């Protein structure tokens, strides 16, 4: 029997029982659909996060003090002179020192507890933040340790509502600061925290808190980001007297990390989650496969006479085996295709709805996931179809013809 004839026979058997075929496929449709949906939603959000990181943090490097657990003391490994040394590196474009200030901020009766950064004007450049009104922090502010503040978008609204904050006086802890600038919103869910801080000059923060060490440094790299990180690592190890030729992060008392590295971590986490959720969804494929086997067994019993007839007119064992196997594979493949279309459509819908709330979420259809889903459907059809098909092929033609 020609393969095309076997396929046509399988198709006819499926289309003759449309409702039953559809119900049989439902498990596969849901299984494949969930795999495609979960993976594409995971991929879409990963793309979204990476886009955000890339947009806001291109060439950005952050240096944190580390080693609290190891050295058993507060994180005081980054000093102002480290900052000055890093500033002199030829591969660095701009560096900003930062001190975290933990105080309440008041204006009139309004009181909030935002992040307060004591930093320099480079900070805004490093994170791509733009001014909405007034001015940014200047070198003059820093030199004179002026009591001035720049407010992020959301904080300005929280404290002043519709009023213009420029020139107004706010209290940070026990000191008064004049608001000199307000930043534009970054307009992103991912960067939401960047819309809430209050920025004061580094020197002012140091005077207010008495803290000599830096909480962290941010900088922009000029060229190759990995080379810049290597420069920073070698400079700071030398300054801190650390011998670490293998680059073991546990031996350092600081960590220089690029946004790209952060993006890689995001990628790894979302990949892990996607694979995990995809596997759970894959379990429903097994359930779907059992449904296929069940219906195919019923079908073999129901069509015993037909099998007998086919054998009586010359069908060989493998003709019957192939016919029933192709039926189950056709069912799972059809279910797989419907599942892919449905899963992808739902994925697009999720991306479209999410875009309305958190900014553009690009829809990503993972081709490897599609191929994996189709292969899983195919394998499900083969694995769960083989037993009923073998049962059909083994039927004796006489017994099958006489069967009632």
């Amino acid at each position: 029997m020609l393969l095309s004839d076997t396929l046509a026979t399988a198709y006819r058997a499926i289309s003759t029982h449309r409702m039953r075929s559809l119900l049989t496929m439902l498990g596969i449709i849901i299984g494949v659909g969930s795999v495609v949906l979960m993976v594409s939603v995971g991929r879409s959000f990963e793309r979204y996060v990476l886009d955000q990181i890339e947009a806001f943090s291109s060439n950005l490097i952050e240096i944190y003090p580390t080693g609290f657990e190891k050295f058993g003391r507060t994180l005081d490994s980054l000093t102002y002179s480290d900052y000055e040394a890093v500033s002199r590196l030829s591969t660095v474009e701009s560096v900003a020192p930062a001190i975290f200030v933990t105080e309440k901020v008041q204006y009139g009766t309004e009181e909030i507890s935002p992040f307060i950064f004591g930093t320099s004007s480079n900070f805004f450049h490093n994170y791509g933040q733009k001014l909405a009104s007034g001015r940014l922090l200047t070198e003059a502010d820093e030199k004179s340790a002026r009591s001035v503040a720049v407010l992020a978008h959301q904080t300005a609204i929280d404290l002043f509502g519709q009023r213009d904050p420029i020139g107004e006086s706010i209290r940070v802890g026990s000191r008064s600061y004049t608001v000199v600038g307000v930043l534009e919103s970054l307009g992103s869910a991912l960067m939401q925290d960047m819309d809430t801080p209050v920025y004061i000059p580094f020197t002012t923060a140091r005077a207010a808190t008495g803290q000599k060490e830096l909480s962290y440094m941010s900088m922009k790299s000029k060229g190759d980001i990995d080379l810049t990180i290597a420069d920073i690592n070698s400079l700071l190890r030398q300054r801190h007297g650390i011998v670490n030729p293998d680059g073991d992060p546990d031996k350092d008392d600081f960590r220089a990390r690029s946004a790209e590295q952060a993006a890689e971590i995001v990628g790894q986490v979302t990949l892990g989650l996607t694979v995990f959720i995809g596997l759970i969804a894959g379990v429903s494929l097994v359930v779907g496969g059992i449904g296929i086997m069940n219906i195919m067994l019923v079908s073999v019993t129901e069509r015993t006479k037909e099998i007998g007839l086919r054998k009586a007119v010359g069908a060989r064992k493998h003709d019957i085996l192939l016919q029933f196997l192709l039926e189950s594979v056709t069912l799972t493949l059809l279910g797989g295709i419907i599942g892919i279309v449905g899963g992808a459509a739902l994925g697009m819908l999720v991306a479209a709805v999410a875009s309305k709330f958190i900014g553009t979420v690009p829809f990503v259809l993972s081709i490897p996931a599609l191929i994996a889903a189709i292969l899983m459907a195919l394998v499900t059809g083969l694995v769960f179809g083989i037993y009923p098909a073998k049962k059909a092929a083994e039927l004796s033609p006489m017994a099958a013809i006489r069967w009632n």
Partner: protein
Amino acid sequence: MPSKKAPLIETIDLCKSYFNEELETPVLFDINLTIQEGEFLSIMGPSGSGKSTLMHILGFLDNPTSGKFLFRGDRTKSLNDDELARIRATRVSFVFQAFNLLPRTSVLDNVMLPLLYHPTIPASERVERAMHAIATVGLTERATYFTNQLSGGQQQRVAIARALVTEPDIIFADEPTGNLDSTSGIQVMDALQQLHDDMGRTIVLVTHEEATARHAERIIHLKDGRIASDSKKFKRVRSNGKGKLK
């Protein structure tokens, strides 16, 4: 080498038993039978006489337990399942009591079914051959009908067309009128008789009805698994073209 005059079918001391675990149930004993090409033969006998079992062996649906079975002089000893299937696809065909047509399938597709499994007839010839067979049983106008839209007699004629389509050496008809009213029965028997008389087909009819058996030119009576009588050259009944096919 088989001689040119070798009979179509020859059995020598053919026996058949069924085995249920250790229990042997003999069904056929020492069947010695010769069927020449072009014969129209009836195998008669009451229920349990072994006539269907004999037909299944002669029709390559089953193997004998012992004895010889020669087809055109060739010994058919211990053929495997695929070899039996190939012979069924090319040399023999069946008409069953219950018609055994595919439901929700057209007359044409039913008649074409054996051609799907025929090793040498090309796919391009299927429709033409099937339409020719359908014309032979006078159902051309019903070719596109689903089989469940036809009467019992018409359905059995579709089964006859299906048996004809591969141009087999021999057609086995197992109680072909058993499920039909008398008029339809006559039509079906006329159709079989016409195949023999006009086209020279070899037909083996299995029946327990004397009136049906008498359409053949030779009647074999089976009793308790043995040939009780083998009568040839008696006067055949004819329906005088009453139910004659168009």
